[in-house]
């Protein structure tokens, strides 16, 4: 049982114990409102000042049969009074709304941790559906955990005894009982959620009232029962002052695109086709028509990218969003954008592959496809956001490079970054970069392929511009005129020019950023969503005084110009990635470095220990 600690609150007789951070996981049937419960707890905690990171864990099925293992939905969050980089490796508290949720989530949690259970659902039918032979509440399964069994459904119905709602509607409120109980347990106020409920059910105030009532019942249950020896308090974090909001990666990316549109003065045209986990980018941007954003749900991924290229040709920021299978389909058309030298932003929210693979799980295995997945010598810029909020900046960076260098830019997000959320320090608009674009006009005296000697970029000429009518196409072009050319030397010149243009971007991007000692034993080189876990691992080593530094890459093609020098300062370079070693291959191929890979391909983000342990072995020379 939890120890009593310092602190108190008036409305309870219980002491309040201070925690640095806590990892809570809500789990239940997809119909149980788990995502909503998690989001409410998150928002309330954000407003209470905690730093936070969240991870929703959807079932692959739309709506699997109630109570089935396939239907289990989860939402994990870590809140802390310190900086948080991940949703946490393993939950301190697991809230289970039914037996299936217990079955699926029990392997995630360590012995001794807290499990809060809705015992109302542990009837023999549900127990069987969850694949248990016996009732796990009774057969000793949970002996090693701190179990808090609560008859949540019954208590919910009790709280709504006087309500006119149907039995079904009443039962549906049960997640708010659990939420209320947790609000009590973590010393949270309920007003944010109350406001949200009133707004959400403004047309059905009886539902708002019922949910609020049930939430209070849950809270009061905590107050009155003797079940919990103490409540907990996670103090506000020391966070940079400013205004914050909670964003998922997909939302931040969409906001970044709106920002890029405003900063460049160009409309964004999104041509796309729905696919998990990228669809939300379409859903988000479709709501920003007031910013002049055009969203076009095409018949397939190919039409999606082609329409984006057509729009780029017309002077818009052509954008297309997808996941792995769509990236594969878009590759031919991306080659056209490369040879035509048109701006294009391609967002690939990576998921488990190959083929349909594990469509709702994150993976980082499209890096080489992004680099090389086009026939011919066909270079493109490749970027990857580090965290959900970083998607905002990466979107702006992608548009900057695409329009400045007239090149496709691929953004490699992943299902973890896309769906998880973190607190985002909202930037001041005037601190954002100027992306303004000037289309070439006849008076500039430039042809369609007169290159800027500095950037090697060609001019962007919009159709409709008098005096500059010209033809572009997928055939090789004359270096000077842009007309079709079959000349052998010209072809090589063009191939090398296009390559040099993209390689030259290295001069125009941020240098490699090192966290930790500037030289030493180990450099952890990372990209994409492992960023947060790596940050935690670095903190662990920092505390220990180990000679371990980190460098996180947001630019994957080209690499920062100084990357080679940076890596040369460490005895070992270690690369953790959710694939079999794709960045490792690129580093090996391009530098005199033989990195050590930490590779996990399980459709799950790294845990801190999965990075710390192998690095530690390396430090000990055991590896």
């Amino acid at each position, binding site marked *: 049982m939890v120890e009593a600690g310092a602190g108190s609150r008036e409305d309870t007789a219980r002491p309040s114990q201070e925690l640095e951070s806590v990892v809570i996981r809500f789990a239940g049937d997809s119909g149980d409102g788990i995502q909503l419960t998690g989001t409410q707890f998150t928002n309330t905690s954000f*407003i209470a*000042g905690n730093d936070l990171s969240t991870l929703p864990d959807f079932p692959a099925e739309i709506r699997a049969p109630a109570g089935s293992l396939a239907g289990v939905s989860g939402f994990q969050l870590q809140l802390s009074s310190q900086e948080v980089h991940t949703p946490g490796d393993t939950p301190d508290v697991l809230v289970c709304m039914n037996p299936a949720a217990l079955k699926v989530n029990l392997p995630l949690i360590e012995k001794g941790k807290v499990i809060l259970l809705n015992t109302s659902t542990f009837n023999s039918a549900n127990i069987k559906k969850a694949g248990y032979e016996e009732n796990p509440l009774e057969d000793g399964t949970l002996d090693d955990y701190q179990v808090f069994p609560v008859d949540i459904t019954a208590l919910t119905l009790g709280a709504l005894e006087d309500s006119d709602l149907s039995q079904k509607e009443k039962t549906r409120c049960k997640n708010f009982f659990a939420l209320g109980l947790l609000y009590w347990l973590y010393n949270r106020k309920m007003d*944010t959620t109350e406001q949200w409920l009133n707004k959400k059910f403004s047309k059905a105030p009886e539902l708002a009232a019922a949910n609020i009532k049930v939430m209070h019942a849950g809270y009061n249950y905590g107050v009155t029962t003797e079940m919990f020896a103490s409540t907990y308090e996670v103090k506000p974090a020391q*966070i940079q*002052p*400013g*205004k*914050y*909001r*909670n964003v998922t990666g997909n939302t931040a990316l969409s*906001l970044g695109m*709106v*920002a890029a549109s*405003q*900063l460049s003065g160009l*409309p964004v*045209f999104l*041509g796309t086709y729905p696919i998990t986990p990228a669809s939300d980018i379409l859903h988000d941007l479709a709501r*920003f*028509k*007031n*910013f*002049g954003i*055009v969203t*076009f749900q*095409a*018949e*397939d991924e*190919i*039409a999606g990218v*082609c*329409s984006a*290229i*057509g*729009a*780029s*040709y*017309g*002077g*818009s920021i*052509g954008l297309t969003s997808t996941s792995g299978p769509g990236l594969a389909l878009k590759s*031919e*058309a991306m*080659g*056209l954008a490369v040879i035509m030298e048109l701006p294009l932003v391609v967002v690939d929210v990576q998921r488990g592959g190959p083929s349909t693979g594990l469509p709702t799980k994150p993976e980082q295995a499209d890096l080489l496809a992004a680099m090389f997945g086009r026939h011919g010598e066909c270079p493109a810029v490749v970027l990857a956001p580090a965290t959900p909020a970083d998607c905002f900046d990466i979107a702006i960076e992608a548009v900057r490079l695409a329009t400045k260098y007239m090149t496709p830019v691929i953004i490699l997000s992943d299902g973890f970054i896309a769906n998880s959320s973190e607190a985002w320090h*909202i*930037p001041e*608009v005037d601190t954002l970069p100027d992306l303004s674009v000037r289309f070439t006009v006849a008076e500039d005296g430039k042809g369609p392929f007169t290159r800027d000697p500095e950037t090697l970029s060609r001019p962007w000429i*919009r*159709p*409709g*511009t008098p005096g*500059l*009518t*010209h*033809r*572009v*196409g*997928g055939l090789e072009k004359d270096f000077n005129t842009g007309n*079709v050319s079959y000349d052998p030397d010209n072809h090589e010149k063009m191939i090398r020019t296009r390559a040099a243009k993209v390689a030259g971007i290295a001069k125009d991007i941020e240098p490699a950023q090192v966290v930790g000692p500037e030289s030493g034993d180990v450099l952890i080189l990372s990209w994409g969503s492992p960023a947060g876990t790596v940050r935690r691992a670095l903190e662990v080593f920092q505390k220990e005084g180990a000679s371990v530094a980190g460098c996180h890459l947001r630019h994957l093609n080209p690499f920062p110009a100084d990357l080679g020098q940076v890596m040369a300062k460490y005895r070992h370079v270690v690369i953790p990635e959710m694939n079999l070693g794709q960045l490792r291959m690129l580093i090996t191929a391009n530098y005199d470095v033989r990195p050590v890979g930490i590779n996990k391909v399980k459709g799950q983000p790294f845990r801190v220990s999965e990075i710390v342990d192998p690095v530690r072995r390396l430090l000990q020379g055991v590896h």
Partner: protein
Amino acid sequence: MEALKLTKKDFTSDQDVRWCPGCGDYAILSTVQKIMPDLGVPPHDVVFVSGIGCSGRFPYYMNTYGFHSIHGRAPGFATGLKVSRPELSVWLVSGDGDAMSIGGNHLIHILRRNVDINILMFNNRIYGLTKGQYSPTSEIGKKTKSTPMGSLDRPFNPLSLALGAGASFVARAVDRDLGHLQEVIRAANAHKGTSFVEIYQNCNVFNDGAFSQFTEKETKDDTVLYLEHGKPLIFGKNKDKGIVMRGAHPEVVTIGGEGGVLESDIVVHDETVPTPHYAFMLSQLQYPKFPEPVGVLRSVEQPTYDEMANEQIRRAKEAANGSSSLEKLLNSGDTWTVE
């Protein structure tokens, strides 16, 4: 229009035309270049988009903006361009393989969406550029390099396919009848929405004479049915044959004479029938049982995708009432302040 005082030359680029001598593409190119000055759009506001194939070369020869894309995907590029730049006059040139083989899906979807683009599909019933394989419009049993024992697939009827997809404007013309071709292309341009024009085009190298029954003097009066809005479906050297409906089915009849039919019984052509069943019936008139219709089968005004998409943007902006500031957007949602 007059102010522009443009001529055919203004629409002719400096690039050497590289089709085979004798190819039907020349006549189409020349016709398009000829009527362009009358359309009231300066060359720099016109864009020709194409895919890959002999026909795909078309944009290079037009002194307009030109976009020679990849095989089959021209509708995608054209849609993105037109929706984002509705003020441009966008034309799409494609072949039977480009449009109906690899590009079939994009074709039916652009037709369904009714994006305001003029599609000219050069149907030579063969793959020209890749040197003579059968195409989705080749007649069954066609012996080509890829089908030495004869092709097995029943060809598409391009007009029927377009109508099945819901096309709002569907027409047919022939590369050898230049006056009529002009008329049809003008009508296509005048139509707001996707205009689909099938042009019978002779590939004299790999499929010579595919349409000779419709172009040769001796036969064409009996094999071609010229459609004119409001006029009866009459054809034949002596204008004495026509189409009547027998129940749900069309039939060729002889007008007048003994046992002949009255001219007033002949179906009167109406390109504006709201649902496509009538135009579909026309599209199914096939030689040798029937004469093949040329001209406009269907021309129905319906809102265009590009127009509606831009209208939504306008409405959204209006609804936001000038308050769409980036700053506001970034600061929206559940925010909190750390001090």
